[in-house]
């Protein structure tokens, strides 16, 4: 379709954004024969097998293999990149990339604007939220409560797990009150735990940490993951788009982030490819929505979008599309940006763009005395999930512990540095080979996805000073981390200490903080006892908040159906609707929320 063409006709729903959340809204509406138009800002290259494989080849040849490295650069629908994120100097915004960072802390998370969205480069970890995550205020006096409970969301978790294809064993996931209905099980068996998971799990058996006067077990358990495994009865694994025999199982490629070469990992491309079979579904890529427009009655009466033919060059043309309901599913930052640019959903409050959160990810690393078999398998197969909830949340944040399989990965991006450093010291030949063989497989890295509380000052804003090649606003990010999360990072080191000691790692080979060449700048935090702690964290890529759901029109942007309080035919969906972060990687919950919201949408379309 050329730029001058645009699909005509009236749609039941327009969905802005072709990521996992938008795709699942579309799936439910199309299943009920509703006419859906999906507008995707990026390109749709991943829909052919060859197109997707070209991303894999691109990944191979990229010098810096960061989260968006496999995907084509697109100045007409830019995305934030890891390499754009730098330390913020006070008073000087970081304007290197697409995202304008005002600080005081760098917001170190990225996303991807392309069909499939960030699910192209996500890790694929899909734990459920804990029941107490939905009532943080009531239970621990922190943050806010959600306007819905775990039990209300539970059926949609199951639906999301079956739709995305999650591999897990129910028993591994039943903790912190996470319950499953009788007869339910995940569609596929759990992904085998890596050798290093097994070694660590055995070593820490029976060990505990003490948080706020209470002992918690340090226990390694298998993670729920949206990647293909052995199917249970009634489920057929979905393979690669355009080549379904490929990707029937996770093949251990070890590159979940930024790209699963066989598409054993779920991406929204799978859902969208299936939708394209339906006459009720229309996809329009390279269509950047710039404005949500309102009618005299205060209801949304259209979206304006720009279509570009060639990235960064044009020709471009502007169109308006109309439908009965409008669903913004463009990502927490993009949704907020679009609402702000359209000057909508702000009649009762100024919550749009506010309460931006992430899971600040702190990490520790060590060199085990024996081979851990590192650099094998999916990047992460297990976690220490026991500290995702507990009374200590009155005092400091909960966290999910990520037991890595890829050596020191984010610490110093092995193995390039290990090779060049050895060569620089004139280590070569057999010595080089054995030095690498005797160190890299011993690398262990334990990281923490730390809960963050909603704060007004952490936000997405827009300013006419900062626009992209298409003339759209670039997101301006203001971000800080409060003591609630900092303190958790300090406490989390106790867990690492238990693990490292249990593995028999000498103290000199245990690393809890500090700066390694070329890595995130070191930070410091002073705890209530006056101790100053050097600490590192990066982003987890979990953008949460920005258009949160709430109980009343005064405290939030959307209600529990993710429906705008101001405009009843506008839905703003995704991680941006979440009032708090919990500790779970948020995509599964975002999809479950979206599935739940489709009930309200369908009610409106009846």
């Amino acid at each position, binding site marked *: 379709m050329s730029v001058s063409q645009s699909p005509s006709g009236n749609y039941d729903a327009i969905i802005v954004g072709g990521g996992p959340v938008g795709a699942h809204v579309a799936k439910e509406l199309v299943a009920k024969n509703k006419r859906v138009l999906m507008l995707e800002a990026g390109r749709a290259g991943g829909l052919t097998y060859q197109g997707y494989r070209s991303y894999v080849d691109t990944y191979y040849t990229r010098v810096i293999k960061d989260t968006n490295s496999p995907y084509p650069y697109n100045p007409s629908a830019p995305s934030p990149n890891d390499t754009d994120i730098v330390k913020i100097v006070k008073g000087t915004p970081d304007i290197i990339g697409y995202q304008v960072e005002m600080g005081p802390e760098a917001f170190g998370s990225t996303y991807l604007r392309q069909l499939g969205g960030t699910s192209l480069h996500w890790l694929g970890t899909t734990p459920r939220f804990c029941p107490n995550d939905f009532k943080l205020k009531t239970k621990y006096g922190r943050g806010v409560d959600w306007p819905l409970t775990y039990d209300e969301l539970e059926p949609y978790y199951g639906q999301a797990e079956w739709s995305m294809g999650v591999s897990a064993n129910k028993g591994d996931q039943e903790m912190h009150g996470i319950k499953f209905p009788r007869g339910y099980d995940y569609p596929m068996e759990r992904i085998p735990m890596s050798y290093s998971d097994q070694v660590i799990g055995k070593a820490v058996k029976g060990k505990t940490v003490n948080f706020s006067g209470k002992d918690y077990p340090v226990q390694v358990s298998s993670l729920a993951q949206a990647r293909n495994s*052995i*199917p249970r009865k009634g489920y*057929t*694994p979905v393979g690669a788009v355009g080549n379904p*025999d*490929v990707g*029937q*199982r996770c*093949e251990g490629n070890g590159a979940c982030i930024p790209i699963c070469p066989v598409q054993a990992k779920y991406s929204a491309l799978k859902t969208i490819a299936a939708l394209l079979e339906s006459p009720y579904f229309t996809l329009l890529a390279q269509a950047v929505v710039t404005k949500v427009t309102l009618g005299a009655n205060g209801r949304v009466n259209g979206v304006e979008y720009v279509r570009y033919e060639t990235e960064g060059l044009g020709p471009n043309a502007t169109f308006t599309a109309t439908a009965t309901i409008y669903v913004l599913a463009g990502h927490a930052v993009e949704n907020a940006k679009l609402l702000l640019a359209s000057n909508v959903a702000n009649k009762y409050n100024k919550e749009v763009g506010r309460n931006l959160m992430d899971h600040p990810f702190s990490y520790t690393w060590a060199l085990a005395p024996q081979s851990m078999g590192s650099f094998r398998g999916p990047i992460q197969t297990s976690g220490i999930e026991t500290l995702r909830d507990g009374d200590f949340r009155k005092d400091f944040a909960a966290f999910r512990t990520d037991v890595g399989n890829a050596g020191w990965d984010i610490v110093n991006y092995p193995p390039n540095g290990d090779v060049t450093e050895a060569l620089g010291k004139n280590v070569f030949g057999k010595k080089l080979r054995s030095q690498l063989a005797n160190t890299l497989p011993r690398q262990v890295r334990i990281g923490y996805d730390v809960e963050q509380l909603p704060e007004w000052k952490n936000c997405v804003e827009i300013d006419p000073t900062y626009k992209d090649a298409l003339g759209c606003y670039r997101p301006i990010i203001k971000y800080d981390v409060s003591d609630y999360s900092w303190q958790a990072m300090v406490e989390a080191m106790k867990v690492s200490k238990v693990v490292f000691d249990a593995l028999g790692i000498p103290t000199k080979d245990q690393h809890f903080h500090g700066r390694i060449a070329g890595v995130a700048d070191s930070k410091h935090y002073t705890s209530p006892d006056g101790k100053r702690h050097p600490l590192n964290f990066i982003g987890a890529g979990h953008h949460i908040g920005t258009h949160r759901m709430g109980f009343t029109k005064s405290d939030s942007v959307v209600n529990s159906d993710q429906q705008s309080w101001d405009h009843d035919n506008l839905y703003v969906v995704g991680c941006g609707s979440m009032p708090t972060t919990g500790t779970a990687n948020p995509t599964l919950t975002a999809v479950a929320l979206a599935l739940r919201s489709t009930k309200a949408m369908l009610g409106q379309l009846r």
Partner: protein
Amino acid sequence: MKTTSSRTSSLTPPLPPPINTPDSLKEHLQTALMIEHSTIPPYLCALYSIPNGENVTASTLIRSVVMEEMLHMVLVANLLNAINCPPKVKDPKFIPTYPAYLPHSDKKFVVQLLPFGTDAIETFLKIEMPAPLGAPPQSGDFRTIAQFYAAIRQGFEYLCAQPGGEKKLFVGSASKQIDGSSWYYGGGGAPFAVDSLKTALEAIAEITEQGEGYDHTLYDGDNRFGQVDELAHFFRFNEIRAGRRYQATDTPNGYPTGAALVVDWSARFPMAPNPKVSEYADRPEIHQLMMEFNRTYTKLLGSLDTAFNGTPSELLKAVPLMYDLKYRAQTLMAIPSGRGDGTTVGPSFEYAP
């Protein structure tokens, strides 16, 4: 069956077919397992000699045939287990010494380990040759694999036609059957359990039709099993030879007349035919790599043997070994053979426990 070749006259009682005892059936099924396997190393050599990213269509076609040959091995193992005969895979005698004739064939052509090329494809066409219309079943010295399977089919039918025959024949343990998608995946279709004459005949039909085509058509008739119809093996190889795809109006007797299929016969590693470890006894570096390949290969056969003999989950371990085999083969194929003729080394597929 309407007719059998052994029926000479309607007045004399029909003679039993050549396969007429359970023991004979078992023996022939074990041979079938060997036949299925014996085609895999030659196919793999052709496949792995194509460098990554070259001859994409040809390599996709060859790969799809290999996947189906593996499925056939699983189905034959199911047939053997159904009649309570342990399939034997990990055995030096199980592997042909290439160049070799197909086991129990009429020895009209030899099968070799060759790189991708016209010679290799010509051989593959002979392997997958459809039986001529009305060709008799052949339990030994067979001309086409299809005729050999026809004899096995007759054997099943004959034994089941005896009083209580089916019940007496299918006494294998159901737990040894490999079915569904738990253990086997990645293309070629899903294996199914064999526990009756009906399922046995279905398994035989699946094997022969994927090879030579269903009912003298170009296609494998897989849509009857809820899968997409694909060209039978013979015709897939014929597309590569002709450099042209089949189209809907084409017939088995004619040439493909569809779109061009671009084949670059020079885009391959020129592996020297039928390599042997012994040839490289004086080149320890190469010798070691070849031995490592053979040990992996033998380990793979061991995994299959275990999987076929009561532990179907062992098939999961076979997959990593298959991949490992591929990477080792590709390494060998890139190493100059030192013969001075521009050829490279290659995998020898020899037994090395």
